[in-house]
Every structure is written in structure tokens, then in C-alpha cells.
């Protein structure tokens, strides 16, 4: 990067992230409008039985966002040890969420709800899997930073990477709340 201005890379990373978020919003926006149109197109719409586990997962994801924020505060204060604890907690909770989602899919299948059972189930699987795929991408970034942090190679100087990963993580949390509303309330 040749622009001498300090912080150029930091700004670029944020701009790139927000651009990326726009494209993710468009993807899920198209998904939503497909869902609305498909529901109106025929009278075969059915909701999905919502396992309680979904609520547990939601809580886990929310907690991971809280942990992320705590970690960032510690990093700003230069407290690397506490950063490591909080960030590792966030990564663990993130992994737990994905594991929880896998259990949800298993439960649903056990209850006889498959991808091709009816439109409601189809959209549920597509939406949750797409969300989990985006989340897995964010989790890999998170875990990579975690690995660096635990080897003490991540200082306050790498704040940009931490910030970008955090913003993405919160975004995916909000996206999850939205999807949950879509499936649980609008779609039932």
C-alpha cells in the first residue's frame, strides 16, 4: 500500500468489510424475498417445529458477541492476558453454536423434517446452512487470531484484524436474530 497516510490499511480493511457485508445482505435479502414469493405462490406452506435448542444456540451466540466485546476492551487497554481469556471464550462459544446448529438439523431430520419435505423446511435448511457457512468463515478468522494470541504474537498493533473479525461476528449475530424471526414467527 503506497499511500503514506497512516491508518490506510486499517481504513481499507474496514471499507472492504462493509462492502462485503453489503453483498451478504443482498444474498439474504434475495433469499427473504424468494421466501415471501414462494409462500404466496401456493397453499402448501408449513412452518417448522422449532426445537428449544434454537433458543439455547441463540443465547450462546449472543454470549460470544459479549465475549468479543470484552476482549476488544482488554486489547485496547493492553491487557493481553485478559484478552486471551475473553477471545478464547468467544471462539469456544462460536464453535459451540455451530455444533448446536448441527444438532438442530439432526433433531429435525429425526422428526422427519427434511430439506425437500415442504417449502418451509427447504427455506429453513437453506437459510440456516448459509448462515452457518458464513459464520464458519468468521470463526476461522477468529480461531486464527486466537492461535496468534495464545502464542503472544498478537499485540495491540493487530487491532485491525481483531476489529474486523469482531464486526463481522456481531453482524452474523444480528443476521441470526433476523433469520430466527423469519423462520420462527413470520414463517410459522
Amino acid at each position, binding site marked *: *500500500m503506497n499511500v503514506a497516510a497512516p491508518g*490506510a490499511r486499517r481504513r*481499507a480493511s474496514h471499507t472492504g468489510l462493509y462492502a462485503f457485508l453489503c453483498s451478504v445482505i*443482498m444474498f439474504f435479502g*434475495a433469499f427473504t424475498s424468494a421466501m415471501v414469493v*414462494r409462500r404466496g405462490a*401456493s397453499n*402448501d406452506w408449513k412452518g417448522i417445529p422449532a426445537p428449544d435448542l434454537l433458543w439455547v444456540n441463540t443465547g450462546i451466540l449472543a454470549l460470544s458477541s459479549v465475549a468479543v466485546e470484552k476482549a476488544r476492551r482488554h486489547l485496547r487497554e493492553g491487557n493481553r492476558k485478559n484478552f486471551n481469556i475473553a477471545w478464547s471464550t468467544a471462539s469456544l462459544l462460536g464453535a459451540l453454536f455451530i455444533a448446536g446448529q448441527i444438532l438442530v438439523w439432526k433433531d429435525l431430520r429425526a422428526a422427519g423434517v427434511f430439506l*425437500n419435505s415442504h417449502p418451509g423446511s427447504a427455506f429453513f435448511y437453506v437459510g440456516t446452512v448459509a448462515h452457518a457457512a458464513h459464520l464458519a468463515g468468521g470463526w476461522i478468522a477468529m480461531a486464527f487470531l486466537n492461535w496468534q494470541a495464545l502464542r503472544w504474537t498478537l499485540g495491540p498493533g493487530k487491532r485491525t484484524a481483531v476489529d474486523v473479525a469482531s464486526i463481522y461476528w456481531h453482524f452474523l449475530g444480528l443476521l441470526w436474530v433476523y433469520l430466527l424471526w423469519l423462520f420462527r414467527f413470520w414463517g410459522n
Partner: protein
Amino acid sequence: MAAPAGRPKVTNMNHGFLRRYLFSTDHKTIGLQYITLSIFAAFVGIALSVLMRFHLVYPESRWRLLETLWPDGAPGGVMTPELYLSLMTMHGTIMVFFLLTTVPQGGFGNYFLPLQIGAADMAFPRLNMLSFWTTFLSFVVLCAAFFVEGGAPLAGWTAYPPLSAVGQIAGPGQGLGQTLWVLSIALFCIASLMGAINFITTTLELRTRGMSLLRMPLTCWGWFTTAIISLFAFGVLLAGGVLLLLDREAGTSFFLPAGLMINDKLLANKGGSPLLFQHLFWFFGHPEVYIAILPGMGAVSTILATFSRKPVFGYRAMIWAMLIIGFLSFVVWGHHMFISGMSPYSSIAFSLLTVTVGVPSAIKTFNWLGTIWGGSLRLTTAMLFALGFVSVFISGGLTGLILGQPALDSYFHDTYFVVGHFHMIMGVATVFAAFAATFYWFPKMRGRMMNETLGRIHFYLTFIGVYAIFIPMHFAGIAGNPRRYADFAQFDFLKDLSFLHKATTHAAFFTAAVQLLFLFNFLWSWWKGPKAGQNPWHATTLEWTLPSPPPEENFGHNPPQVHRGPYDYSLPGAPKDFLMQQEER
């Protein structure tokens, strides 16, 4: 990554062959990779179209070559309708995605955006490399459809369900071939999104000192607007592609309605809506046509100014026009679906919005004319192609206004009139802009000049050729000739058109052959062209302040300081007839 100040950056010369030519992160190498891929794709696409045109006017003739290439598709050397449709699908897909979308943005944009804004590279060089190789993979996956069981898909570049969703029983290519098509398009979407993120960030964050947004060349504005449109459009196509794939492979019914009988077999799907796919597709598809043409508009503006030795007329109006076109492109998609049974009120709304696009388009056209008006024109090949662009943009845009009327479109839809319209405005206009850009920037990219005499001959013959191909198509459409049919001879009412179709086909052969002149000129000049100086056209933008070809690190540690707008030609009282952007006076 930032190199610490004062320390020379490691240059490419130290990298091995792989890092230098294949997995390079240098935007210039990546740009050339995109350009190479596009030129190859273009010739594949041309070859397919020649085969199609041949079949249309000589449907009965036997051709050994065809049988060798497609033993099932051309038994006895006669092309089956299925083979025809698969050639058509592949032609459209290759041309739209791997030529018209790829060369203006991935190719020239990659090469020249960082140079023109005074940056060392794109914002995310590794992401840039990744988007090229994803595009490449997407092309390979698409072409693989030719070689798999059943061959290439038949559903056209728009891939409407039910045909595209029901699988093998709907035709040979509808099995694995169509699946590969969907995968290829999904990969292409991902690659384009990565590219868009890179372009937007580069434009916003990496401009050098003094390069305010309103001092950027219109080329940069074209790439920037295109990137924004791509960012909002490709995600939607990706969503449509995922759902289509699931309908094909997982037994869902997003797009497949109940009671479908295909080849005497009743399908199990129920409740889906084929129109839903059309909406998703065209919500992407209309912006896509502007993704193809906007970078060309930017390049043409710059080239017209350079060779008229005049500033672009109405620079700010040009920017506004581009942004407005970009915005409007998201609210007109319904004009592709007038006859889909939508409510007449929606038709009227879409129609009004569609014709509104005519306003910014007209602003651009008049500003181009204003730019050359009274200038001292230098009719180089680049200039000729830029003028040709304006010409076909007008001829193709006017037919768009006709198609934008629901009453007229209910007759013209799915006729050759549409084929004429979009080839003129999307195909030819974009390709002309790409030719203009090639002749204009080749000296910078290679350090050698292309041959002007050969270039002009190529221009004039191509110009005549494309009009000879595509204007008659409008007449065929007016006569009611449907598109996407493998054989017209069976329809009595089309018998009278056989001469017109023959003429079109011969014009197509001729024009295709003429493109070899370009290929020859390009390759010959690449190795043997006379050396070009730093700034052979006396142009004003920053890339011309560097040696040709530019060094790997572009401006190195001396990013230029910009003092003026991009088109300071014929300044009153100036010592020479142009001032470059970094010149103080």
C-alpha cells in the same frame, strides 16, 4: 502490504516463474490474465456462433467435422435441435460472463485503476489473485459441460426453470451439463463479488494525494460504479443459483410447480414458482447489462477527449449519469417479463422506469458528441472504435425504447428484434469499447505500438460487418421470427426471410474472419511492434507518467501529487496543448 519507508520494495524479478506469471498478486499481471482469458473465451464464443448461423441457413447440410466433434449431437453430420440449443446456451453464457463482464472490469479495470489513481496495487492483492483464479475455474467448469455425458445444457444463458430445473429427462444436456452450468455461474458470482469489494475499497481508500473523487478520470468512475452494481447484483444471482441447484439435485420445489409432465413422466414436485426464478435472475440480469457497458462508457469518454484534444464535455454530468444509470438499473428488471402475466399496473411502472433510463443515456450520448464537437480529431484506431461505440450505442439504445413499451414488447418479446437489440448495445458496444481500450492502452501494457493500418482496416470491416449482421435481425423480428429456434424453414410465414437469414449468416462469417486480423495484430505487435514511448497519445492521466510497461511497484515510494482534473486539454495560455494531472502548470 506496506513496505517500510525508505527501503526498496522487493520486485517481481526475484520471484520464480509461478509467482511471477501464474500466481502473481500484481494487478497488472492479473489484468493481463483476465484479458487473455477473455480473448480466448471470445474466440470460443465466436466459433459457436458461426456453427449456429451455419445451421440456421443450411439446416440439412452434412458436415463431417460436426459429427467428429459431437457424435450424438450431429449424427451423419446434421446438427440436431438439441445440439443447436446447447451451442446457443454456451455461446450466450461464455460471451456475457467471460467476455463482456470480464474484460472491461477484471481486465482493463484491474490493470489501470491503481495506475490512474496513483496506487501501488489493488487494496487486497491476494483477494485479487483469488478472484481471477475463481473466474478461471468457473470457465473451466462451464466448458467441462461440453465433455460430460449428455453434453452442454440447452436452457439458454437465462436458464429459466422448469427446463433448467427438471434434469436429464428434459433433454441430453439438462443432466450433468446444466448442473455444471449452475456451479460455474455460482463460482462466477463469488469471483465477481470478491472483485467488486476490491475495486470499491481501492477507489475509496488508495487514491494518491490530490486525487479527489472529482478529479478521477471517468474510466475510474466507470469501474467504481460497475463495482457497486456488481456488489448488489451478484449476491442475488448466487441465491437464485443455490435454489436452482437444490431443485435439480435435492428434490425441493422452489421453482417447480405441481403437475409437470415431461416426456410423459409426471414429476413429484409441487407448489414452486418458475416466475420466482425470473425475478431473481433479472434483478441481477438487468444490472448485469450495465456491468458490461459502464466501464466501456468510461473508457470511451477518456478516449474521445484524448483524440479530440478537448476536455470531456460535462464531466460532472457524466458522473451523475453513470450513478443514476446504476441506480435505475435495479428497478427496471420487470421489462424482461412484460408477457409473464404480471399485472398491467406493474408493467406500466416498469415501462416508465425503463424509458427513464433513456434520460441519463441521452445525457451521455450528447456529452460525447459535445466532446468531439469542434475538436481537432485524430482518427486513430482507438478513436475510431470509440466513435463506433457511440454509433452502436445509439442504434441499440433506440430499439430498447421500443422494447420498453409493454404493448410493443408483447409482440417483440422472444423474437429476433430482441436479439438484434442486445447484440447491438451489449455485445457490439462493449466489444467496441474493449477494442478501443486495447488500442489505446496496448502501448502502456506492452511498451509497443499496435499496427494502426491493420487496426483501421479491422475497424472499418468490423463496423460494416456488425451492422450487416444485427440490423437485419431487427427486420426478422418485426416479421415475427422467434428466437432460440433451431430451424425456421418449417414455418411458412418465415420462408420469405430466407434471403435475409442467408445474408446475415454470410455477414457473420465475414465479421468472424475479420477478427483474425485483430488477433494477428495483437500477437504480432506484442512481439514485434515498434517501441512506444511513455506517453504516445499525449494523454493526461497518471498511467502515462510511468515507463511503458510500468514497473512492478508502479509509483514506488513517490506516489504522485495530483494538481488538476483528468482532461486538461487545450488549456488557454498553456505552453503545450495538454497538462498532465500531476503537472502544476
